[in-house]
């Protein structure tokens, strides 16, 4: 598989034409090679655009690229939750994987709590794979890729990027490096917390109402930043109606990149540009207009909702 093949796939995927199962097998092999080499704390350089949850909203991902620019011109770090809930998880994930293989230094992919076998069987990705390919093979291939994805990233040694948040079991970045990440997301422990926790106005640590991960307060954030010489934390994982939200005097930023989440929440989305000087610049965008979404693959409301 050469660069020109990859470029052709990427163009086709943008027109939502799916590769064959065999081609996906090859693609996954390549992604795997790249991902396993990456550390649990991936090193990323500025400038870079930070992207939050996408959740299979493929046409909104294309809209995102229209706003932020496409790889390789713009560098990206995706904070996970590529799949589930939207109608086009397959297209979304495959496009991101193809971009990762084509431009490994321009695109970073971090694992989210939805990049898991258990969660994808409940929230749509599994079903979509079976519906679009007639079997679970593609889902299985993708699930293996999930196991290889990095858990976090640090931009210019100053900005910590993770899907969910912090863990009481993690003091320093070295603790994260020590995790054996190549497995299904566990139900508890540091790896689970990184993907599931949320920042909240609490003292210290509280169990999360989600049933996994913790709620962590300002104190935990300050401590973690201090110990690791970091400026702030960029994370996703929670719907923000305004697209992004800063907490604790800007020490935590939540970025949300799925506009009109689940096609009904009415929220706007955002991406965060970190420029050469790590200045944050938020770009808010709305869902792609109807005209840019082909009807196919969309579930029509039954006509008693007319």
């Amino acid at each position, binding site marked *: 598989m050469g660069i020109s093949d990859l470029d052709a796939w990427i163009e086709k995927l943008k027109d939502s034409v799916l590769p064959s199962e065999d081609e996906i097998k090859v693609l996954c092999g390549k992604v795997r090679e790249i991902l396993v080499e990456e550390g649990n704390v991936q090193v990323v*350089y500025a*400038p870079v655009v930070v992207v939050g949850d996408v959740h299979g909203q493929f046409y909104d991902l294309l809209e995102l*690229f*229209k*706003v*932020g*620019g*496409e790889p*390789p*011109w*713009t*560098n990206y770090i995706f904070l996970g939750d590529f799949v589930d809930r939207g109608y086009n998880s397959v297209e979304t994930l495959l496009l991101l994987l193809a971009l990762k293989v084509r*431009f*490994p*230094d*321009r695109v970073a992919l971090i694992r989210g709590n939805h990049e898991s076998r258990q969660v994808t069987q409940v929230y749509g990705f599994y079903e979509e794979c*079976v519906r679009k390919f*007639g*079997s*679970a093979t593609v889902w299985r291939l993708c699930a293996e890729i999930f196991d290889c994805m990095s858990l976090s990233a640090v931009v210019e040694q100053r900005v910590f990027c993770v899907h969910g948040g912090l863990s009481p079991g993690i003091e320093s970045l070295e603790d994260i490096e020590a995790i054996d990440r190549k497995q299904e997301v566990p139900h508890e422990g540091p790896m689970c917390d990184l993907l599931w926790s949320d920042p909240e106005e609490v003292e210290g640590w509280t169990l999360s109402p989600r049933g996994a991960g913790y709620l962590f307060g300002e104190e935990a954030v300050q401590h973690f930043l201090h110990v690791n010489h970091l400026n702030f934390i960029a994370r996703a994982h929670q719907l923000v109606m305004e697209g992004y939200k800063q907490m604790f005097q800007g020490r935590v930023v939540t970025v949300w990149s799925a506009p009109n989440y689940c096609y009904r929440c009415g929220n706007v989305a955002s991406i965060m*540009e970190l*420029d*050469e*000087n790590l200045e944050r*610049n938020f*770009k808010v*965008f*709305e869902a792609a*207009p109807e005209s840019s979404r082909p009807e196919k693959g969309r579930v029509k409301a039954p*006509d*008693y909702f*007319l």
Partner: protein
Amino acid sequence: MQLRLNSIKRLGTIATALGPERTRSELLPFLNENIDDEDEVLLALAEQLGNFIDSVGGPKYAFCLLDLLETLAAVEETVVREKAVESLNKIVDVMAEAGQTDDVLKYFVPLVKRLAKGDWFTSRISATGLFHSAYRHIPRNNQTLKDELRNLFKELAQDETPMVRRALASKLSKFASVVEVKYVEDELIPIFVRLAGDEQDSVRLLAVENCAVLAKLSPVKSEVREEYLIPIARELAADKSWRVRFMFADKICELAEGLGFDATVKELAPSFYKLMEDCEAEVRTAAAFKIASFFETISRLDENMTDSSSVVSEVFEKLYSYSRDLSLDDSPFVRSALASNIMSVAPIVGPEITRDTLLRMFLKLLQDDFSEVRLNIIGSLEKVSQVIGIEKLASDLLPSIVELSEDRNWRIRYAAIELTPTLARQLGKSYFESDKKLGMLCVQWLSDTVYSVRELAIKNLTSLTELFGEEWAIEHVLPAIVALYKNSKNYLYRMTALHAMSSLSSKVPQEVVEQLFLPLLVEQACRDSVANIRFVAAKTLQDVAQYIKKETRSNLIIPCLEKLNNNMDEDSDVRYYANQALIALQSLV
């Protein structure tokens, strides 16, 4: 389950291996016994059986498949039933085509009758979808059987379950297309009348479409049209359920086609005006979407008429005055629907009316608060300009375009910039100098926050350079691009400047590229701290190289690219693009 699903999907292969005889004697009975499966498996089975005639030994044995499909047509899950009905229709067509009419009468017609009399409403729903193919294949001389089927159809029209009546209503026009005209008039029209007055609005709303189709069946006598169809259309338009009125507005063109010019002008148009001021926003939206196509339909139907042009222009005046109210509607969706199509009437009404009336609405909608309205109306500029020419519009449009190009919504800014070259052709160079508002904007658009807008801004400047010539570009554009590169702390804008150089280098003289762009590319961009800028610089060098003297290429560009390529740069993408550029440059030599 996956396993069973896969084996059902391979049913054809299995049958081929068994041969027709064993398929009939072993496979089908086996399938018949194992019908209690998941819906997904049953759906696959219902579909497969439709293509199974060859596997059981050809049309002669097609009847073997009917039993199994009859069972599937009675299950609870809708999609399975629908698939079974589809397959049954397919099979009976093949049987009849192969001359197996006796089998149709012996097996298929009784099957339809059984389903129609089924205890459970699901089978009765399936029956409604089979009547037309059964009826079609009954020989002309067998009137008794035909009468019987029509009577059954009539019974189902009075079924106590609304879902059955609804299914029947949706199949009525299909059935009507195979029934003899006499019976359509005597029997089906009364059924239609009853369904149009059904207590359930979900049944009544199907009557709208039926009305259009029945009216179009050409042999139907005009008295029938006058006596039944037109009054019912009138009632449906004023139905107490908004869903029915919505459907009426949505199907207005089909109704007009069916009922013809006179009835449209006398009956449908007044009803339509009422829907344009309906109390439900959804209904007004549906009507607003159809204004232009309704008027188009009327004008088309009018072509065969004489002395009716005054009637048509009267309709237009009415439509226009109601449209004016819609342009002030409280609901943005109504205004947006109006903006999406109203200007399509311009070519029909001609330049005079367009200039006197439509243009005012056009400019009004351009100022709308709701961005989608502005976007839709901008999109229709071409239709208006085709009729009255852009020169009439340019001066009116200029302030609006300027305003829209600074809109909060990037798609509106994009639409406004897209129109600029068209506008420029009319306004001329003087409006686009760097001390004029438009000239300044054209350069400012390069600094937009949205990537796609920046790229379009480059395209726009390139088109304008083609139009106004290189002198204009040298004076008003190029200095701005160089400044954009030098003054941008953010790499995205330095990149925009580089992309602009690539795009413009073909339109300006060689010396300018060499003196203005080249030093900047070689000395600054290729040494930028951001890798993205370095590889875009390499790509830009590749793009501009063909407009540069050969010796400059080998003295300046090639060494610079080689430096980036030969593992001197830490970034693999920089090395890749430098290498690509070197290969391209070699082919130039």
